């Protein structure tokens, strides 16, 4: 039984990292595709002799578009870089909103492929949490994965954060039609999640309408 859990855990971790990398590389390729066409267009215009003063605004506009795409790409690199470095230390004081925002940014494409909108709704000024952010991200992913798989296209999932007493909460709220069966009867076993939440010292509860609430104590495990 232990072995089975360990294998399930490994499979979940691999799927998680796989989805993150796939989403990341697709986004970056997309930005590069735009940059390539924009710079190609500048080259075309020069070759065709569009070199009068009247053409300057168009050149500037294209250059701006290239800069914007580079900005988008850098933002993605920053997310991925932070995400990877979270695993350097197991327990750290972190900002819950930043941790979730990064996760959502990296998983956005995965949801979009199924035409599901991933939205966030953050309570500002949350206290820092002393816990294991990587494990929390993996736990949130395990729920998002199942809800994305269960929802029919044009659905929506909102991830909301909030604080109550000495705890913070992550609420995952799906909206839309579920294909069939239970949204959370997916690939991740309850046992793995129980194990995570035990290590995080928190609590998981299932709300109405297939909502999931994860609560974590602010002062850590």
């Amino acid at each position, binding site marked *: 039984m232990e072995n089975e859990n360990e294998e399930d855990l490994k499979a979940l971790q691999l799927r998680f990292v796989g989805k993150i990398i*796939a989403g990341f*590389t*697709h986004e970056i*390729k*997309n930005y*590069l*595709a*735009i940059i*390539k*066409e*924009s710079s*190609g*267009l500048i080259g*075309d*215009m020069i070759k*065709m002799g569009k070199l009068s003063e009247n053409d300057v605004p168009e050149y500037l506009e*294209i250059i701006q*578009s290239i800069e*914007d*795409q580079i900005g988008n790409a850098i933002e993605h690199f920053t997310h991925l870089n932070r995400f990877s470095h979270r695993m350097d230390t197991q327990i750290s004081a972190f900002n819950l909103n930043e941790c979730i925002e990064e996760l959502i940014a990296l998983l956005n494409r995965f949801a979009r*492929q199924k*035409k599901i909108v991933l939205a966030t709704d953050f309570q500002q000024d949350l206290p820092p949490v002393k816990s294991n952010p990587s494990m929390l991200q993996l736990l949130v992913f395990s729920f998002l994965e199942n809800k994305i798989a269960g929802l029919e296209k044009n659905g929506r999932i909102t991830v909301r954060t909030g604080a109550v007493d000495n705890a913070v909460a992550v609420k995952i709220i799906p909206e839309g039609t579920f294909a069939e069966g239970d949204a959370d009867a997916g690939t991740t076993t309850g046992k793995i999640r129980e194990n995570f939440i035990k290590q995080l010292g928190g609590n998981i509860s299932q709300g109405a309408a297939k909502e999931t609430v994860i609560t974590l104590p602010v002062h850590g495990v």
Partner: protein
Amino acid sequence: MPQTKVLLVDDEIEFASALAERLQLRNYDVKVGHTAIEAMGFIHQFMPDVVVLDLKIPGMDGLETLKTIKKLDPTIEVIMLTGHGDVLSVEEGMKSGAFEYIMKPIDIGELTSKIDKAKKKRINA
């Protein structure tokens, strides 16, 4: 020979406008649609020779759009644009009558050569 009429369908607005302009500078007659609905509108009004169709457009997706176009007029040739190695969609697209596919980031020379071949096939159809 009259200009080749190309309908470019991609929801990535900046990508589509830069590519459209590059094609226009190469003497193609180009219209751009960002959604399947816009694309279908242009199929009727503009009557393109070749459609360059991104597979990941919102609403009715690229594959469904491809099938609808081929049903309306099987002589319109469709070149699929794909942002990633989505082998299954490409295979299904080819089975559904797409002429060719091209991966993003694209090579403009490769795209124009595929558009020209598609036009030739349409003329001979």
